[in-house]
């Protein structure tokens, strides 16, 4: 009798588990469908034409036009919100031991989302067109580190470069400009596709390296790739705008992969540091990672690797673009004095009754950032994980900069998913959530 009852109880438990498993699988399928539908809606609507969410651009993807309606705030922001909720739901489902999301499912979903956004128009920023213009400058003998796109006579992409940047010399590192040169050798449409392809390849590399690092560090690689690859700010903003942050992040993860994999190999340690320097030669922000790597390893190899890579980069940059091309700090300094309404600094200024950010606020924020970096270096010297410390450093830069762009908040994400200090992941996602809530304010008021 007791055996029969035990069997019945066991069967009942299995049935409940099976039902629960089917339910979570159905929920995961639903949330995945929501993400794909959201991305498709945004891309098809964006293909209709120029709106505040979609910069003016040549009709390089005209085959998508005619399926949607013009993309405005009233569609984009609710879609962003719903996609964010679906993303959060998928993370929660993927966390458990009985995650319904298989390796194949996760990779397939990430690939589909990335390809949808890749196929569509440039979203939410004009940076890609400015970068194509810099590439044309480099090819046509105009130094992009001295002159803005305005100096390029007869350039057909001129109408698509934001008036704000038309006179700005390139703020990016020489390695990025050299990578983009193929876009300057071809026509405008082909140039746009080349930079979109570079961003897609960089995203794929970032995700593949994140997968590898997660596995090496004993984390679930499926969860890691879901957190990074399905992130709405990563997909819609960074990849949607084909930003060079993705190239910087790919080199960042290459540096981490080499350093983690070759803990005892001097050559790998040197290569890891060199990869980080290469990332800083794309976008100088990544330079913050280097001191953490060196302080953590306490070996000569990473220093040698970094110095050799920097020397090589500076020589190539100097030969290609002269002294202006190797002034890595100049671009950061110029951008550092700008203020975006997206920035937390602006929001804090409003909270404290100020009309905006003043020069004294810039100094306070820079001072605060320096204190945070010094503290993190001390913690790393005392054994704290350098990958996590680098993530905190990048997050601190994103939070403290007065020129915050939405895709800056994704910088620490690949590091957060391979960190044993889960506070970094929580903090990064919380910052993104706060930013998204702030963005949705047009939904709550009357439309002028």
């Amino acid at each position, binding site marked *: 009798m007791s055996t029969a009852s035990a069997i019945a109880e066991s069967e009942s438990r299995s049935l409940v588990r099976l039902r629960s498993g089917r339910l979570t699988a159905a929920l995961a399928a639903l949330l995945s469908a929501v993400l794909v539908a959201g991305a498709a809606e945004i891309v098809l609507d964006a293909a209709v034409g120029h709106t505040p969410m979609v910069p003016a651009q040549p009709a390089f993807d005209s085959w998508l036009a005619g399926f949607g309606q013009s993309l405005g705030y009233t569609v984009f922001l609710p879609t962003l919100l719903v996609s964010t909720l679906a993303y959060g739901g998928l993370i929660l489902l993927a966390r458990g031991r009985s995650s319904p999301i298989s390796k194949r499912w996760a990779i397939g979903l990430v690939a589909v989302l990335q390809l949808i956004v890749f196929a569509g128009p440039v979203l939410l920023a004009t940076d890609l067109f400015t970068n194509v213009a810099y590439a044309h400058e480099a090819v046509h003998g105009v130094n992009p580190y001295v002159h803005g796109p305005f100096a390029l006579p007869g350039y057909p992409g001129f109408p698509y470069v934001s008036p704000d940047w038309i006179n700005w010399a390139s703020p990016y590192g020489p390695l990025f400009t050299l990578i983009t040169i193929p876009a300057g050798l071809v026509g405008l449409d082909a140039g746009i596709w080349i930079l979109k392809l570079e961003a897609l390849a960089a995203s794929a590399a970032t995700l593949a390296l994140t997968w590898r690092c997660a596995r090496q560090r004993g984390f679930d690689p499926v969860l890691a790739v879901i957190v990074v690859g399905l992130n709405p700010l990563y997909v819609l903003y960074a990849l949607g705008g084909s930003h060079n942050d993705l190239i910087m992040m790919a080199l960042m993860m290459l540096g981490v992969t080499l350093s983690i994999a070759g803990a005892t190999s001097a050559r790998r340690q040197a290569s890891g540091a060199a990869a980080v320097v290469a990332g800083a030669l794309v976008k100088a922000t990544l330079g913050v990672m280097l001191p953490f790597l060196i302080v953590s*390893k*306490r*070996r*000569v190899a990473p*220093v040698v690797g970094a110095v050799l890579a920097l020397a090589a980069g500076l020589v190539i940059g100097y030969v290609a673009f002269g002294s202006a091309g190797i002034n890595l700090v100049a671009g950061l300094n110029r951008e550092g004095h700008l203020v975006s309404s997206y920035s*937390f600094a*602006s*929001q*804090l200024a*409003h*909270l404290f009754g100020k*009309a905006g950010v003043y020069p004294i606020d810039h100094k306070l924020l820079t001072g605060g950032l320096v204190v945070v970096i010094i503290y993190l270096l*001390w*913690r790393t*010297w*005392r*054994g*704290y*994980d350098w990958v996590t410390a680098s993530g905190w450093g990048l997050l601190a830069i994103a*939070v403290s900069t007065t020129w915050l762009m939405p895709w800056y908040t994704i910088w620490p994400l690949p590091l957060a998913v391979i960190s*044993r*200090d*889960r*506070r970094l992941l929580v*903090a990064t996602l*919380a*910052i993104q959530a*706060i*930013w998204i*809530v*702030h963005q*949705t*304010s*047009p939904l*709550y*008021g*009357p*439309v*002028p």
Partner: protein
Amino acid sequence: MLRGRTCPACGVGTVSGLATGIGGRLPAWLAPREHDCAGRRLWRVETVALILVGLLLAIAAINDVFYSVNASAQLVADQTTWRHYTGRDYYNVSAGALVVGRAPDISCANSSPGPPGERTQICLLIDGPIVHGLRSVVGGWRLAARTGDFPAKRYDCFGEGAAKALCPKG
């Protein structure tokens, strides 16, 4: 998470390379370690600091959302007030602050149909709370077509515009 109790053997690490020799000369709190041996207390202090920063940022963001919603409501009310006051149901009515952060606000639009700014402008100074979707008109002026709102281009000032001598030419 790496916390004090779970971390591997603590103490000044037998670190190699650059740190060799340095560790012995440094005070204990500055000596290099191979593993993170920060105690629970430091972990708690850091976590509390992070939560406080997060709360501050969240409050600032929500404050901004409220500010933005109120500003939108005021903008719509100013445009409606302009249309109501002038009896002209034009779409392109500008609205904003005359001086940032100070009342009154200003709202301008064409006095006759035409592209924005291409006709003589009627500008109204608007102040006070929103009542039934409208705010109070406390003054204003006319502005020459195809010019910015510079004092030299204003005329026919009335109300606060005249009282505060905002039209130098009268």
